[in-house]
């Protein structure tokens, strides 16, 4: 089983009937010149990368942008088009009115598998008390939280909101809540590793590629910035493969993770089993 835990479906063709909405998405995500992708292309890309499933992330920026870039209902529609290939997350803007009810609706009625939050774009610190009801709701329904952490290439983002150190209180206060720092919290990958070795409920994904090619960036990040032995020995149950596609290159990143020199058993965990554990199963 090989799962990409962080994919933005904003440009999937079935949810882009409206050109104005597609244009909004290009600007809101700062991803350009990529066009829209028919599902057949997505499946071709998955096959070339060796991927079995994609975890689709919506983005609700109501309080800062005035709308959701991708709605939870659109995620549900996509999952229904390929339930064997897609896993759907929910997004709410914690600073927007009615967000808690919207999240409960996403979990109970839409059947979405977790919550995606973007502190840098939604302008909150993860340890802000106002987030407590959302974490409690995730615990109640046994749903994980995927946080965008570290650098974001999206407009109107402040990186300090997603610094790994701001997640420690959440991890400590909610030991049963599984949380993931996307992009390994890049560039603060050692700080992320510190959290992971201290808290078993903290996961990280690999979805960053801000310099060089996939192979070079992964070698720098996961063998030098963080020694490979840290991952292979101590963090092997908490790292999940992700590409952040279409921001970054899914196929080359999928290949690069396999060339780092990790044990086969560790690779199996990173490619699939850790994601299954994080999600609380695939059902």
């Amino acid at each position, binding site marked *: 089983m090989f799962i990409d835990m962080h994919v933005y479906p904003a440009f999937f063709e079935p949810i882009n009937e409206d050109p104005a909405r597609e244009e909004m998405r290009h600007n809101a995500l700062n*991803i350009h010149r990529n066009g829209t992708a028919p599902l057949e292309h997505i499946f071709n890309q998955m096959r070339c990368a060796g991927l079995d499933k994609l975890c689709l992330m919506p983005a609700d920026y109501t309080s800062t942008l005035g709308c959701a870039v991708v709605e939870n209902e659109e995620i549900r529609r996509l999952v229904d088009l390929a339930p064997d290939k897609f896993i759907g997350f929910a997004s709410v803007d914690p600073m927007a009115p009615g967000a808690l009810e919207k999240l409960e609706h996403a979990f109970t009625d839409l059947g979405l598998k977790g919550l995606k939050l973007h502190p840098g774009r939604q302008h909150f610190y993860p340890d802000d008390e106002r987030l407590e009801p959302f974490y409690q709701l995730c615990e109640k329904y046994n749903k994980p939280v995927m946080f965008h952490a570290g650098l974001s290439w999206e407009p109107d983002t402040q990186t300090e909101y997603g610094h790994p150190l701001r997640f420690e209180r959440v991890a400590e206060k909610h030991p049963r809540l599984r949380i993931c720092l996307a992009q390994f919290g890049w560039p603060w990958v050692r700080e992320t590793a510190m959290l992971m070795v201290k808290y078993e409920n903290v996961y990280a994904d690999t979805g960053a590629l801000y310099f060089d090619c996939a192979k070079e960036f992964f070698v720098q990040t996961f063998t030098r910035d963080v020694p490979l032995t840290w991952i292979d020995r101590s963090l092997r149950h908490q790292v999940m493969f992700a590409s952040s596609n279409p921001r970054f290159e899914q196929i080359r990143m999928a290949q690069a993770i396999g060339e780092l020199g990790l044990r086969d058993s560790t690779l199996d965990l990173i490619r699939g089993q850790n994601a299954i554990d994080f999600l609380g199963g695939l059902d």
Partner: protein
Amino acid sequence: MFVKPITILTKTYNEMDLLTRQVEQIVAESGVKNGMVTVLTKHTTTGVTVNESLECLESDIEVFLSRMAPEDFPYSHARMLKDYGSTAGNPTGHLKAYITGNHCHFPIIDGEMVRGGAQDIYFCEFDGPAKRTVLVIVEGE
């Protein structure tokens, strides 16, 4: 001028797809009796080339281009591109496209596209899978 696009959903990283029949159909559809047809890819990591349609040659061309532009090389085109908001990771596609070129021409005489007996038109994908567009441009009278 008569222009018609061909949309191709490529399935693999590198592939060669025959376009000859589709181009001939578009020439016939255009109604042009005497003139020129140009086949032009709209992308910079794909090529259009003319060669003999043999499995062995397709393999040799792929191996030759991979030798000219190996995957494992410290290319400069490997960085965040602000215009795209994403990372460039396809230098080999650009270089292979540079080698093959992006178009071909054939004359049209008496309503027929005139080509040599061994000549076929190929669309070449060098950064797939992807959704691609090739323009067939027919000029004449």
